[in-house]
């Protein structure tokens, strides 16, 4: 028989232990996912990546059945967000959306790399943005070829770009150099300023994603001179010159596209990675997602994670590194 004094605490401890055990069993036995997933966004609220993150999170939520919350961790052009992803628990409850460049750049610049590429696993590529070159409606160049000839003869034509460290600038510079266009980029703080500058004739052309250009183009105030991706898929005049039609193979191969990929901590279990992979496949076939993507002016362009990691990533790494070296941004 137990003494009165120790009976209550004894019962309490037994009950506590039982509860803890049952928690442990629960945690072990349930299938992933059972709780909220955090989707890290590398930029602040209101930005284009943030909007995409929210739309995608909604889709993800639909297919996995648990809440998916956008978590903004802005800073350092993606460094803060990815560092957070790498340091969070590899239990599949923290994922992130980024471009390959967001991953690569922090590892090659600014002193000690905050993380290594091997810390990340790519589940898969999801969408690709459409990027266009626009001019004011009454610009002198009626065709892209006219412009190319003009640019080659008159080096130093200015184009507005959304910031000198942006992937878009890298893309245009790559094109300009490979096609010998001798263009000079003028950095602006975002698409709105570029549009205003082009419309106001302060610069002859602007580089931006299609989403912004659409409205002004439809109203006839701006013309899309060139699109990097396929015009038919983008829903604009199929005769618009694009990389495939206006540039030769060597230029096309070196192009840097801007695509969003889904990332997790590489230490995450294979089981969870595969679950996410399957979900991603389902999403890319979901017509609702296609409709949302169309509204956001991005192309659903799924590529399996393994392929991205084996093929796209290494060649992109080389390109980015070479570009940064030229610009003097490598430490």
């Amino acid at each position: 028989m137990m003494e009165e004094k120790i009976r209550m605490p004894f019962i309490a401890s037994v009950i506590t232990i039982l509860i803890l055990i049952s928690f442990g069993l629960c945690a072990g036995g349930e299938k992933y996912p059972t709780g909220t997933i955090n989707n890290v966004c590398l930029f602040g609220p209101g930005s284009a990546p943030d909007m995409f993150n929210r739309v995608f999170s909604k889709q993800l939520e639909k297919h996995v059945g648990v809440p998916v919350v956008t978590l903004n961790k802005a800073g350092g052009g993606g460094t803060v967000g990815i560092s957070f992803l790498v340091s969070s628990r590899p239990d599949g409850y923290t994922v992130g959306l980024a471009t390959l460049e967001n991953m690569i750049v922090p590892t090659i610049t600014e002193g000690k790399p905050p993380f290594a590429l091997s810390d990340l696993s790519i589940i898969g590529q999801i969408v690709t943005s459409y990027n266009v070159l626009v001019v004011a409606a009454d610009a002198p160049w009626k065709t892209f070829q006219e412009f190319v000839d003009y640019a080659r003869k008159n080096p130093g034509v200015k184009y507005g770009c959304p910031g000198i460290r942006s992937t878009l600038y890298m893309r245009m510079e790559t094109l300009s150099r490979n096609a010998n266009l001798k263009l000079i980029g003028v950095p602006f703080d975002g698409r709105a300023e570029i549009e205003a500058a082009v419309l106001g004739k302060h610069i002859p052309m602007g580089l931006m994603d299609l989403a912004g250009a659409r409205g002004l183009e439809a109203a006839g105030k701006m013309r899309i001179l060139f699109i990097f991706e396929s015009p038919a898929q983008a829903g604009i005049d199929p005769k618009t010159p694009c990389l495939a039609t206006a540039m030769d193979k060597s230029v096309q191969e070196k192009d840097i596209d801007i695509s969003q990929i889904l990332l997790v901590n590489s230490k995450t279990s294979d089981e969870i990675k595969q679950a996410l992979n399957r979900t991603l496949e389902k999403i890319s076939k979901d017509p609702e997602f296609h409709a949302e993507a169309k509204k956001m002016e991005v192309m659903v362009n799924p590529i399996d994670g393994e392929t991205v990691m084996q093929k796209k990533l290494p060649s992109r790494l080389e390109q980015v590194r070479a570009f940064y070296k030229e610009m003097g941004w490598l430490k």
Partner: protein
Amino acid sequence: MELISGVLFGFKVALQPWNLLYCFIGVCIGTLIGVLPGIGPVGAMSILLPMTFGLSPATAIIMLAGIFYGAMYGGSTTSIMVNIPGEPSSVITCLDGYQMARKGRLGPALGISALGSFIGGTFSLIGLIFLVFILAQVALKFGPPEYFSLICVSMTLLIYLAKGSASKALIMILIGLMLGSVGIDKITGIARFDFGSSYLLDGIDFIPLAMGLFGISEVLMNLEETEERTIFQSKLRNLLPNVEDWKKSIGPILRGTVIGFFSGVLPGGGPVTATFISYTIEKKISSNPGQFGQGAIEGVAGPETANNAATGGSFVPVLALGIPPNVIMAFLLGALILHGVTPGPLLVSQHPQVFWGIIASMYIGNCMLLLLNLPLIGFWVKLLKIPYRILMPMIVLFCIIGSYGINNSLVDILMMTLFGVAGYILRKLDYEPAPLIVAYILGPMLEKSFRQSLVIADGRLSIFVERPISAVTLAISALILISAGISYFRKSKLKSREGGERRPG
């Protein structure tokens, strides 16, 4: 006339019960967000974006826009009550608004702020309706060289901002400009003053800087007082502005509307530069400029009206061209796109209910906010009567939640504390934080426009005077500088004869 029929149509849309409801929800949430320092309108709008997915585009934008104006109204509340600016456009309101609160004039300060905002909003709406397309074309003529010259004007006005010693204000301006240059240089991509820290790569963020320099430093300064105090130093007087207040405010309000509306049209500063220009102009033309900084009601009426008028003005490029002049408008446009509406010059013809509905709901939103905020004044006054030793930790907590809730960065809290201590030391030594923070906001804009212009002009400095708008604006700033210099010179000659302290002209 087409415009009138459009406006009437807009009201028909905006007054539909559904839209009225969502407008109300929007302004309520916006006010709450505005009062909570740290979470700006953009943060609140992003969190609520998914809520709008099932709604019609007009309704969604009406609600989101309501959050925007609500946050503007709410932001002034915290600036006045506890000297914490939640948004760059609320900084100037802190200067005299908080002083009025300390003198027991919290009610009139909040009241004139709400009324001024309402008048500013209404008049800018009228301006919007009649001038939207013309103004948009005019605004397009402003390119990087013109922006540079405009900001030059603002910078020269900085001289008038200071209350006390001119040399100390100058040092604060220089420090503010330096703080603004921390981070990746936008033109060459090279990092400045980051010392290897990835946090500093993006520069020093406004929220930790402002909350620290104004809010936390105020908290530390108040610790010196006896423990039983409240924020009110003097006895509480009337709850609403009296006739005297009105007489003094009517001028600033009218001027603020004009200044605000036109400032809002141009991309870049918008509401921020509007408040700043309004304040300095009111101070310059006032019959007793010495009152500014001690609780002059003109220093609240003008800027508050200006910043609300600027929100109206910032709709001009959005509705006419689909070009957002600031990040909040950019978000609204993104939301429109998500709802399948393509913003641009065709908006008025393709989606008239969205176009006119937004305009009409602006007015309705402003009305709702006025009706919401005036009765709330009594509540705020009661709140501030709580002893400071209980109030203070709550204020700090809300600052932290506000800042963390959006950026999820604890380094921000560290920075806020650092700037709080720095602000405390500076204020003890009679250095004012206001010129610092305005310089910090304007500096990067100035440098960016300058260097962008030079890239466009291939290095030719003459571009700034070749272009007519830019040349005229530069001439104005030169005139302001010269006039300030002359009056300073005259005053110091006078003072050195009498002996004693120096003040800027």
